[in-house]
């Protein structure tokens, strides 16, 4: 079976500084793939470049089609969704409007059904549907950002640090929903600093350090790797780079 997303030999640079070097990855249908790594490793840059926010040298193919020269909006239309680290919500608009706009490209009747599904997935959003997005708590904003991306009916949802700054109970909830998405047929590419939680739910994993993948394989194997455990799962002092 061919991969849903396939990135080959990707390079991303900020001016002369290469933030991502020679990275290749694949995400299959109904898979959760995670990229773990320390802060500043280039994970967010890679995700943003796959989405078309930054230019990327190399090849990115989605559902068999080359994404080069396609705008962010075209990628969204193809079924690629991104929930960015800063969520990028429409803070002066209410929850319902944010969700409705997530389905901007979808038929109205379908969008209505999608909204009901999102409200079932995130009942808290239904309670807050008339509240302005900017007044929601961090966890609710994360749910809204995920809900907005899901309204566009993506085949692959890329999540950038969804657990950042959230209470453990909400993090657990969000990770539970990510696994539900996979069950519903949505593939997920998850970038996380919380490696432990990410590796627990992922099928495949990549470990990123200083712009490069230094390890990849089954998530369970990566989680069992001693060096990964030492660096990212908190079994050794933080920041150690032993890979």
């Amino acid at each position: 079976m061919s991969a849903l997303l396939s990135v080959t030999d990707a390079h991303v640079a900020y001016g002369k500084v290469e933030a991502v070097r020679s990275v290749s990855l694949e995400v299959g249908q109904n898979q959760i793939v995670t990229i773990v790594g320390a802060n500043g490793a280039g994970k967010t840059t890679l995700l943003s470049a796959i989405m078309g926010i930054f230019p990327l040298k190399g090849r990115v193919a989605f559902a068999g089609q080359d994404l080069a020269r396609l705008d962010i909006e075209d990628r969204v239309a193809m079924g690629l969704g991104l929930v960015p680290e800063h969520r990028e919500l429409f803070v002066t608009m209410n929850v319902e409007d944010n969700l409705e706009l997530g389905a901007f490209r979808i038929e109205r009747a379908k969008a209505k059904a999608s909204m009901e599904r999102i409200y079932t997935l995130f009942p808290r959003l239904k309670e807050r549907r008339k509240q302005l997005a900017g007044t929601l708590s961090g966890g609710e904003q994360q749910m809204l950002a995920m809900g907005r991306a899901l309204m566009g009916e993506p085949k692959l949802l890329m999540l950038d640090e969804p657990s950042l700054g959230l209470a453990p109970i909400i993090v657990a909830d969000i990770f539970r929903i990510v696994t539900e998405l996979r069950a519903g047929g949505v593939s997920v590419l998850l970038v996380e600093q919380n490696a432990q939680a990410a590796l627990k739910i992922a099928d495949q994993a990549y470990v990123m350090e200083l712009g490069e993948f230094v390890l990849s394989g089954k998530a369970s194997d990566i989680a069992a790797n001693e060096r990964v455990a030492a660096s990212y799962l908190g079994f050794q002092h933080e920041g150690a780079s032993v890979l």
Partner: protein
Amino acid sequence: MNTTIMLFLVQDGITNGAIYALLGLALVLVFAVTRVILIPQGEFVTYGALTYASLASGQLPGTAKLALALGIGAFAFDLFVARKALHGRLILRSFLTNVVLPAIVLALTFYFAAQKPPVAVCIALSLVIVAMIGLYLYRVAFQPLAHTSVLVLLIASVGVHLALQGLGLLFFGAEGQRGPAVLSGSFTAGALRFTGQSLTVYGITIAFIVGLWLFFGLTLYGKALRATAVNRLGARLAGIRTTLSGQIAFLLASVIGALSGIMIVPITTLYYDSGFLIGLKGFVAAIIGGLVSYPLTAVAALFVGIVEAFSSFYASNYKEVIVFMLLIPVLLLRSLAAPAVEEEKD
């Protein structure tokens, strides 16, 4: 000053202020969505007014030809951008909206101009012509720069303003023109006399503000425009094309400008360069509203209109100076109230 004069001045101020309000709202809208400070807003006013006046006097306005020329330019841009992957349907759509549409409008204008059309036809044609100019201008002058800094966009805006003003001189000549009243007749209420034209101004302004409020609050495209203004990246991630938002914003701004011109030209003689000063007063209101607040802009515009009316009574030579001086305390207060912001780097 007695109460009657004061009432006259307030009435006059509100009539002008209503037009500044519309222009100010258009400026805020365009800036919020595209980050363009729309200096050529004044030219939309002039073009609308003088196209209307030319048509009413049985002349073919040069703006109809300009719309076709800009449309061909816009089509050329679309072709250039799509050169590596030409999609027949997209090219056909671009050809129809950018070339066929202005060609049909030019033909209609040519046909109607020869027979001194009724006011309604003049208004409709003028609005369509200026709306097309606004739409194609965005495609030709601003869309290719959409990702540059506010300063670059401002420079482009000044360039477009100068070009349009020069073309205005070419199309309409140095002589001023007046157009027929949209609504004739008048009535008096106490000391005040209301003409059909001033009532038209109030009615259209209120209708437009309510219309915009409904458009932004209830329709998906209106919400998409607001979303683009609030968060461009967020909007793109939701699949909302910022170019589409830009086109809608420019379309609305040009229609508002043209409509304002059509409302003014029966009251005042307008010249090819009159729009600039009128647009600037809308700009003063927009700045008072911080280029973000619609209600504050509308209120500020009424205030600008009233200050202008009173200063033209007391010191008519200095009326523009007094109106533009309103900006200084506002900018001073804003600069003191707002924290220092780093210069934009993008």
